[in-house]
């Protein structure tokens, strides 16, 4: 994972121009071979290179301990680099103390100053920058309006709900026009409904402010919802970088496939090379003509298909021509509201498969044999 631009290039420009504000006010953040070693078994962040474009909403996604938070802390200056460089608009900031980096930050626990009122909290960065009093008042009022907290100026943080507190923190983090906004799991302390509301709030503010956002989360839904691009972290490295669609539709690895959304993984016996592009026996047929040449795929490969791309028929004769298919048995079913998920027992596979069908579709009951099929272009061959 050293050359990120090469990785994204074949798939086309990740952020289409239409999705971005016409005027790009943000700054570029460039990480080159950034490493943080705490002296444990493996470095927390291992040679990560990543270029965050001006105005981009970049999400660092990953499980606990994957290095995403450490990476954010390195950008913010709360951790010192073991090696590598971090540049903002071409200036190396690796040695700057955090208070000179001009980066706004949103914390998981809000980190509002309990002894100051809402207005004083928001005015804090302006007072540090010796902004004239009248201007402070105007800017505080303006930004509180932006986060829809007008009239709460004189409340203390403890008198506000969690969602309101995070909005104050957001106002405080953007009021001084930072070069970029860093968001460290800002929504994870909130309940589900509030999280949704604040997600759209953050999206709106990103649109209106137009600056670079770097967002850390372990919640893949949140990441897909908000981001222009996602850097998926695993064990201190970037596993895959791309738009949410790319990561969802075209996972490069098994880890990526499993971390983002549901997926069916059919492990093939053996790998995929130029010669062996088709498996066929009594239980299944896989045409792997569209395989991308990825390391490891040649040794041991797996086919990844999203549940919604799986069709179900009673007999393989009904499979549309050219489609891949696998025999299975319906093991269980889950009612999900707008759709049903059928759990499929697949011959020779440990994990059950999952197929999504409409709620009205009653063709298959638990115990029925089925044939699951999909279009080859909907599948993804990854190293198992």
């Amino acid at each position, binding site marked *: 994972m050293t050359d990120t631009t090469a990785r994204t290039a074949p798939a086309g420009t990740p952020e289409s121009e239409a999705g971005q504000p016409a005027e790009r006010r943000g700054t570029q953040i460039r990480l080159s071979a950034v490493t943080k070693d705490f002296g444990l078994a493996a470095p927390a962040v291992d040679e990560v290179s990543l270029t965050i474009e001006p105005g981009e909403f970049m999400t660092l996604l990953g499980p606990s*301990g994957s290095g995403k938070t450490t990476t954010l802390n390195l950008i913010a200056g709360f951790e010192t680099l073991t090696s590598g460089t971090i540049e903002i608009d071409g200036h190396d900031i690796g040695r700057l103390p955090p208070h000179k980096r001009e980066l706004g930050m949103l914390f998981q626990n809000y980190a509002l100053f309990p002894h100051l009122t809402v207005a004083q909290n928001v005015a804090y960065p302006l007072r540090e920058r010796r902004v004239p009093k009248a201007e402070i008042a105007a800017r505080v009022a303006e930004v509180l309006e932006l986060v829809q907290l007008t009239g709460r100026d004189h409340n203390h943080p403890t008198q506000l709900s969690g969602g309101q507190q995070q909005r104050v923190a957001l106002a405080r983090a953007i009021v001084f026009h930072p070069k970029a906004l860093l968001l460290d*799991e800002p929504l994870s302390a909130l309940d589900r409904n509030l999280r949704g509301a604040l997600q759209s709030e953050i999206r709106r503010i990103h649109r209106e402010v137009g600056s670079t956002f770097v967002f850390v989360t372990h919640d893949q839904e949140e990441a897909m919802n908000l981001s222009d691009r996602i850097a998926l972290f695993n064990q201190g490295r970037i596993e895959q970088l791309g738009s949410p669609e790319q990561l969802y539709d075209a996972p490069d690895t098994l880890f990526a496939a499993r971390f983002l959304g549901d997926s069916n993984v059919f492990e093939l016996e053996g790998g995929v090379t130029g010669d062996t592009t088709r498996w066929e026996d009594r239980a299944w047929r896989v045409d792997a003509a569209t395989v991308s040449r990825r390391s490891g795929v040649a040794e041991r490969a797996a086919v990844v298909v999203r549940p919604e791309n799986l069709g179900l028929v009673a007999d393989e004769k009904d499979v549309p021509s050219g489609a891949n298919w696998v025999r299975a048995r319906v093991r269980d079913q889950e009612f999900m509201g707008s759709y049903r998920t059928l759990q499929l027992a697949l011959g020779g596979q440990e994990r059950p498969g999952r197929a999504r069908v409409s709620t009205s579709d009653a063709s298959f009951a638990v115990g029925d044999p089925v044939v699951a099929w999909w279009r080859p272009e909907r599948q993804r061959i990854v190293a198992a």
Partner: protein
Amino acid sequence: MTTDLLDLPRRSERRRPDANWLLVLPAIVLVTAVLLVPLGQSLVRSVDPPSWTLEHYLSLFTDGVTLKVLGRTAVTAAIVTVCAFLIGYPYAYLMTRVGPRARSLLLVVVLVPFWTSVMARNFAWIVILQRGGPVNSFFEFLGIPGVVPYGNVSGVTIAMTQVLLPFMILPLFSTLGSIDRRLLLAARGLGSSPLAAFWKVFWPLSRGGVVAGMMLVFTLSLGFYVTPALLGSPQESLIAQLLGQRTTQLLDFAGAGALGILVLVTTLLLVAWANRFGGTVSAIGVVATTGSKGRS
């Protein structure tokens, strides 16, 4: 749901140690220059370089005075400790029984000796205990003349016990307060008399606090200077007075050094030993936060 679990401990491990120690430095310099260097110098003086002798330590045991005074000090400290226990236990017990209002009142009362000025307190005891004072008059009124607990060990004991009682009551209160009183009711329900229930159930559970409090009181009693000087008699001086005398009157700095080191080491050993019983350090912590001042 939460943040990177693995990242958290690492984060706190790396909190700019250099900046932190720089902040501690001034305090270390102050305490070292003003307390540790003088104490170190007394240690050095006591072995009298360049002759490097233990003579001053040996003479503490052979001069015929020091040992006697040490013994008297230990006996006085023991009496004070027992008195503090006998008085403090029922009081701490009562504190655990009463409602919250009465409890905070009792707690404030316990802390009063802490903020009663040393000199005011000793002056007050002189007034109360001296010949013709209220205690003397009271016993004469009862037909017992000659009760003057002043100018002798009894006066010193009365005054020391009063100021050391908080050190007994506070650890006791925290121990007794954590004992589940339902155990007593259970013992009563099983047929024990109230006294037997207390003796067999409550007392064994409270022994930790008793030991902590007694160690603390005993240790602190060893260093009293002003109280024995004002309320005791020169013929019955305690170790602290002997130390002061050697220094200012006899100008025997080496001998004073040896005696001072002996007292210091004894005290620190007792504190370290008491630490193993748990209560002492926390008690001193309580005392320091609730407000201790000079004890002498």
